[in-house]
């Protein structure tokens, strides 16, 4: 990594550590809240269902505070920068967001339209996001791949997939 970039990356990583520490601290506190509401059904001197969640809660809070403290105290030029380095490998944040958006829409459609109808557009969108630009290849690829996956899982391996709109139409 070039020397001029390093302090910037370290600052970026430090701010990520602050966010990470804060998020886990919030998780720990939420867990403490819900653990306190758990029913106590234990015999005297024996651990009940709330015992282990309390152990984990304390662990999360303590470690989150350590991450926060380290981020605050740490010198801007030092520290773990693997996360930022890894981020650098991601080529397109927009495409990544596209993949995740496709998943969300697909999960919503899957329950309503069924596997076959929902998978074809999902597959086609992903093909385009992964670089396929020819419309005929996208359309054919998505349709054939969906059909093959459906036949293999439904008929060869007897896995019941959501039928949705095509219930009773597609065997």
């Amino acid at each position, binding site marked *: 990594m070039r020397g001029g970039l390093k302090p910037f990356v370290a600052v970026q990583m430090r701010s990520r550590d602050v966010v990470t520490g804060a998020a886990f601290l919030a998780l720990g506190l939420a867990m403490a809240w819900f653990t306190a509401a758990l029913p106590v059904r234990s015999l005297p001197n024996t651990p009940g269902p709330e015992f282990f969640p309390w152990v984990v809660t304390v662990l999360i809070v303590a470690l989150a505070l350590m991450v926060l403290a380290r981020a605050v105290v740490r010198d801007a030029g030092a520290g773990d920068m693997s996360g930022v380095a890894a981020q650098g490998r991601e*080529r397109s944040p927009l495409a990544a967001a596209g993949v995740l958006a496709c998943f969300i829409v697909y999960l919503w459609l899957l329950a309503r339209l069924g596997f076959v109808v929902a998978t074809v557009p999902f597959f086609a969108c992903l093909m385009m996001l992964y670089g396929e630009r020819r419309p005929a290849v996208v359309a054919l690829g998505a349709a054939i791949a969906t059909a093959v996956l459906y036949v293999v899982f439904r008929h060869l*391996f007897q896995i019941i997939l959501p039928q949705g709109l095509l219930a009773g139409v597609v065997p």
Partner: protein
Amino acid sequence: MSPDVAAGLGQASALSSLIATGCGSLIGLVVGMLPGMTISSGIIIVLPLTFVLDPQISIALLLGLYVGGMMGGSFSAILLNIPGTPSAAATASDGHAMARRGEAGRALGIAIGASFVGGMVSFLGLFLIAPLLADVALSFRTADMFALVFFGLTIVCSFAGASLIKALLSAALGLAIVTIGQDPVMGTARFTFGETEMLAGVHFLTAMIGLFAIPQLVENLGDAARGRPAQRIARGMRQVLPRLSDLRAMRMPVAVGSATGAALGVLPGVGGPIAAFIAYDYSRRLSRDGTEYGRGAVGGIAAPESANNGVTGGALIPMMTLGIPGDPVTAILIGALMVHGLAPGPLLFVERGDFAFGIIFSFLWANIFNLVIAFAGLRVLVRLLATPRPLLMPTIAVLCVVGSFALRNSLFDVAVMFAFGLIGLAMRWAAMPVVPLLLALVLGRQVEENLRISLTGSQGDPTVFLTSPIALTFLTLSVVSVAWSLRPPGGWIASLKGRRGPPPEELES
């Protein structure tokens, strides 16, 4: 031959199991060599099939994939200088150097041969040691089991990477997730928020699919052009079977690599990459001319390849006898067995000895199939390096959905899988390792169960863990394991004497 051994051999050698092993090896070789794909991705692909297959056939398929994936990783390391799996990283320098000299076939042949020998040595270790260790583990009480599983949990330190605190936080998150659903002792509902589907908790495999596959799908965006250089290098592939002189040169590195891999594989947390690099280093030191290493030395390919395949059998020993995963893949294997109601551990050898030995012999077959498929289909396999990403990645995405749905026929599980994918991405953004979370998901329930039963038995007295020699030994090992991870650069002694190692910045560069 004991009845269980004979029955296990029979099960593993049944036609259906052999076909499954062969298919697994083939898939493993392909996913192992495709850069950006891992053995875990391969398992995700076949996971839905294992739910409907017979347990013996399922495990044969998965073992074939595990062993094949280890070998396949070396193909792209040699041809592209991109290790298909982390375990093949040590092979890349010498393997690719040899391939660039126009001897790609020779390099691949050496890798295949060395991988086979490493796998066979680890099979012998598995066959001889696993039943004995299972016998010992049968005498463990709950306090001992807690200490053992806790020791297994300290493996997270091995996967800490740059930050031990973040690794521990990742494991703590896994333990928190494990508490969702009914508690393992009294059945009390915890953190279910009134959702009946949450009562059964988060299924480990659902979480695993999301954690591994979704970040990988994102990471692979824009990698469509990869693979073409391999075609160019592979054109010069004539000789594939190792020459007699190569076999002679391989003897010492393979012996070092196989022994290192099989021995280190038994230690939880020591995966293929560590064993491969250690074997490479020892082999270089023991060779007559260590300067050849890094420039296409036979030993530089044979030592790491025999070591990373040697690890596979070793890693199966703690998995089968103690229920402790040796690496992420064996953690997934535990989950796959649990789907069939089979819990790996010492009781597996008592209650289902035939099945336990079936696993061991399937591992043997996996190594044999690997050798045959790799040598016979090498030229065809190499062409698969150019598989178009626009077709491969959407297929994996759909398989993730089918896999998580098929587990319990639940769309809720698909949503949980996606949520774990987002968690995986967030952890990647925060530079937190995912493997500790995975290990905590596998071991967390056992930790809680054994801890609470032990404390209930002792009326809340924690000294129960110190009065048992076995528990005390494992707890001491846990402390040593953590202390080892915390050691300062240069070691504790140098640190105490005031001699400091290089600062972190220097180490990073």
